């Protein structure tokens, strides 16, 4: 038999392509076992088929593989190690689950510690928020107090400016007989004729009563204003001229004529 002629006849290619007839197939199956050259030629033809087919490959839609894995899911076997049989086949499963257990345990630990840290931080936050709120209140109070002192200081400074101003005349009014504890002072601006009063020591006026300042002008009392509820130096009425000042306790709102039985303090103007 001419083996080369057989190899080159095209029958081997027909065979691998699956279009040889039954008689050709039977003949080839027999010849390839008898002749290594033919066996090699079959091998080469199979390689040719693979190479050609690869060249003509058409890409498959991505979903196709997933679809097949679903269709065949009951046709797959668990991986089995060839050497050790079932024992080693379980080993990787067990180590997998041990890993999972570690991961699960680690997750729980992480979760618990995270919760604890959260609680701790929440408490710290609450305390800090309360502290902050308290500090804010304290600050407001301090600011208010500070403001009050500042106002008083400003008032005192102004008073001092007035008292030490040039042309300011000081009239000290000690308590009269029976009212020795009382004391008041008048500051009288000789330029502007403004009258200021400091009630150094006067008993609190009873309800419905008010202290009234009088200027004695040529022996006659002239109303110089009511002593309002004021602190420090209180500006009263403008008095053009006076020889003395006095304070009586009158009904609230003042009287046109002083009640001399209620005279508390009196002082002469030093001229």
């Amino acid at each position, binding site marked *: 038999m001419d083996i080369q002629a057989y190899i080159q006849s095209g029958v081997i290619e027909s065979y691998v392509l699956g279009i040889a*007839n039954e008689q050709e197939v039977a003949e080839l199956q027999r010849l390839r076992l008898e002749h290594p050259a033919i066996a090699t030629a079959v091998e080469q033809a199979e390689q040719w088929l693979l190479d050609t087919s690869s060249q003509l490959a058409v890409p498959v839609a991505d979903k196709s593989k997933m679809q*097949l894995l679903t269709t065949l899911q009951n046709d797959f076997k668990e*991986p089995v190690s060839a050497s050790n049989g079932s024992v080693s086949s379980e080993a990787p499963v067990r180590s997998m689950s041990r890993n999972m257990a570690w991961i699960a345990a680690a997750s729980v630990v992480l979760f618990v510690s995270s919760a604890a840290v959260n609680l701790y931080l929440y408490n710290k936050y609450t305390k800090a928020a309360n502290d902050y709120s308290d500090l804010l209140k304290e600050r407001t109070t301090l600011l208010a107090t500070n403001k009050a002192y500042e106002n008083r200081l400003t008032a005192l400074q102004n008073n001092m400016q007035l008292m030490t101003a040039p042309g300011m005349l000081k009239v000290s009014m000690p308590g009269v007989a029976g009212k020795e504890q009382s004391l008041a002072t008048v500051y009288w601006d000789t330029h502007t004729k403004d009258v200021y009063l400091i009630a150094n020591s006067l008993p609190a006026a009873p309800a419905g009563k008010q202290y009234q300042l009088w200027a004695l002008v040529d022996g006659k009392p002239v109303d110089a204003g009511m002593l309002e509820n004021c602190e420090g130096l209180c500006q009263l009425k403008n008095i053009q001229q006076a020889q003395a000042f006095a304070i009586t306790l009158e009904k609230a709102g003042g009287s046109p004529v002083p009640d001399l039985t209620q005279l508390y303090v009196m002082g002469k103007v030093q001229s």
Partner: protein
Amino acid sequence: MLKQRTQAAFSYLYDNYAATLNGIIVGIIQDQEVSGDVLQEVFVKIWRQVENYDPVKGRLFTWMYNIARTTAIDTLRSRDWKNSKRNNSLTEEYTSLPDKAPNPGDELGLRKIIQGLREEYKVLVELSYFEGYTQEEISGMLNIPLGTVKTRIRAAILQLRQQVKL
């Protein structure tokens, strides 16, 4: 590895051969959508019959190729498919007349390659490879002696092999 039938083995098989087998199916069916369905069927068959594969008889790929080709031809022959594609197979006959081919160059895969063959070879490849008729059937259909069918098929395949030399 394949005979262990693990999912990993299947995955390997699919990743390496899906596109190549799909090319064979598309070459026969000439319709990518239907080919997708046939490819599914082919891989199911391959996986369920893998124990029947005998390495002594040939390569794994040759075995898979045969499953792909015969499944594609079975689909082509099934009644529904034949009916819906009747007009197409008619036009395929017209492609034998070069000037009247409706869409020359539209053929896919191997079917495109055989367009370069001589007319008497082309019809034999068409009937045997693409339509799966046996040489005896072709001899009867074309009224040509069996010996002539056999010789021409071999010659056609040899010419094809030279054309698709790599």
